[in-house]
């Protein structure tokens, strides 16, 4: 969303930064941008140059005697650098690891100078607010969440892209009216809001108004404003596992609960989703046991982590557990994945009547689990099958059944 502002109207950001800098008396401002967005970087660079020639940034801006230099810093890709103290370290050329506060950056931040950190979207809102007045901005939104918010709609939804809505718009409106609903006739399952540290919102809560307070009541948060819609073909255990994997690899490693705890949680989730064929009794027992520990572990990670990444690391698990407990139970007790995503829990068979014996699957199967002779129906040796799904993909006759 921030990228859209910078690519589409970089002057809004520059003006906002100039006003903010004037407000706090800062003479140097940094824009920290992801290196993956070269277009945004280029446009902002050009815009700063143009602004300089008009005297909107640089020395003695509009004869006010106020100076401002704007520097662009390309981030080197680390999720934790969204944390303000880590971001500062990264600009200083160090490993982006957060540090304890106080001292807060406002007292001692970048190069030990007082520093204020704001998000692009906030800064870009300033010029309009100053021009039109606070009343204009407050005219939209709910009592405690004012103005509008830009969301990035993606996932299993008909219209993807950016949408700007007034705070307090319901999730239902965003997904089914603006977003055009779920394509291909599938059913809505959940939406992930707020990125990896956020939470999911199930169908039962779809009438919720989107504002800061209401989101917290359902265990989600606004975060970056990403809205990923998931339909019934998404497995919530798999989603939790996916987020945990991401968080685990992005943990900076400073706090042990975050570094080790997220790894343990990932292992537990992996065990829940892992195959059944050759599990010993002890392993089964361990699998059950670890599940019991999961919420304890989550609380410890939340309590004992230093920064926002660690504190919110268990969120995806907690929120899927809260709303989709039955899916976990199915995975754990019945060893089934209803969305047919957790491949190791699936059984692949060949429907005899449909199989033409083309041998394609047998050739492609990485473990040689498919047997049969040409022009005769094949069958799958499920002791050898690793559930990779290759046969399902390659079969031209829809003759692979998955359960």
């Amino acid at each position, binding site marked *: 969303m921030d*990228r859209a502002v910078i690519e589409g109207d970089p002057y809004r950001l520059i003006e906002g930064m100039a006003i903010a800098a004037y407000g706090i008396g800062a003479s140097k401002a940094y824009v920290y941008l*992801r*290196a*993956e*967005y070269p277009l945004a970087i280029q446009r902002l660079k050009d815009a700063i140059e143009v602004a300089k020639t008009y005297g909107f940034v640089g020395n003695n801006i509009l004869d006010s005697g106020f100076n401002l230099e704007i520097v662009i*810093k*390309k981030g*080197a*890709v*680390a*999720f934790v650098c969204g944390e303000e103290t880590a971001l500062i370290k*990264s*600009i*200083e*050329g*160090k*490993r*982006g*690891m957060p540090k304890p506060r106080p001292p807060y950056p406002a007292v001692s931040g970048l*190069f030990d100078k007082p520093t204020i950190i704001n998000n692009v979207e906030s800064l870009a809102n300033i010029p309009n607010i100053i021009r039109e007045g606070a009343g204009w901005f407050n005219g939209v939104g709910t009592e405690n969440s004012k103005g509008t918010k830009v969301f*990035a*709609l*993606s*996932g*299993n939804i008909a219209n*993807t*892209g950016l949408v700007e809505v007034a705070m307090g718009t319901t999730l239902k409106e965003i997904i089914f009216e603006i977003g055009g609903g779920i394509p291909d006739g599938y059913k809505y399952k959940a939406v*992930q809001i707020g*990125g*990896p540290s956020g939470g999911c919102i199930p169908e039962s809560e779809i009438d919720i108004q989107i504002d800061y307070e209401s989101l917290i009541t359902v265990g989600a948060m606004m975060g970056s404003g*990403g809205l*990923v*819609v*998931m339909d019934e073909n*998404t497995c919530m255990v798999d*989603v939790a596992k*996916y*987020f945990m994997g*991401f968080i685990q690899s992005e943990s*900076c490693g400073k706090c042990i609960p975050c570094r080790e705890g997220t790894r343990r949680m990932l292992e537990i989730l992996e065990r829940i989703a892992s195959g059944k064929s050759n599990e010993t009794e002890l392993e089964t027992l361990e699998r059950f046991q670890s599940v019991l520990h999961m919420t304890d572990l989550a609380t410890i990670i939340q309590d004992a982590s230093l920064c926002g990444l660690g504190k919110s690391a268990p969120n995806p698990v907690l929120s899927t557990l809260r709303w989709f407990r039955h899916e976990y139970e199915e995975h754990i007790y019945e060893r089934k994945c209803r969305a047919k995503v957790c491949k190791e829990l699936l059984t692949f068979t060949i429907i005899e009547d449909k199989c033409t014996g083309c041998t394609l699957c047998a050739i492609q199967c*990485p473990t040689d689990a498919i047997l049969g002779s040409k022009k005769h129906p094949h069958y799958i040796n499920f002791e050898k099958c690793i559930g*990779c*799904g290759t046969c399902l*993909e390659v079969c031209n006759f829809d003759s692979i059944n998955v359960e």
Partner: protein
Amino acid sequence: MNNNAINEVIEKYPSAKREYLIPMLQDVQEIQGFVSKDSVVMIGDHLKLPGAKIYGVATFYNQFRFNKPGQFHIQICRGTACHVKGSVNVLESIERALNIKVGQTSRDGLFSLEVVACLGACGLAPVISVNGEFYANVDNKKLFKILKNLRKEGGTK
């Protein structure tokens, strides 16, 4: 490697301040495609930092690579939107088709594979990019076509 190019990068940052470390590494990677050992040593001389410190910083960030990439550098998005749209399958297929794992370069030097978190084109998920060129809504069929064309292109060069 091409040490002149590295020298040019270093000359762009005459004031040897620590804050220029990451921009320098970024410039080096842009030119060479990866961060070579030589470049780390040379940057270290310039900034008066031990090589280990530089590696410490460089390995912390996902952006930096330390192996020479292939002629076609494939980046596959493993962001949330792409995951929901099945990017694991695409990733597994690439690994199988090229017989390399993430972070490796194929023996013939043609392909290398890297995982990135969100390429910023979530509406087009799942997304892969080859040498910076984006391919949207990639499924296995599309993928095999892309790889086939790249192989052809690479073979003729």
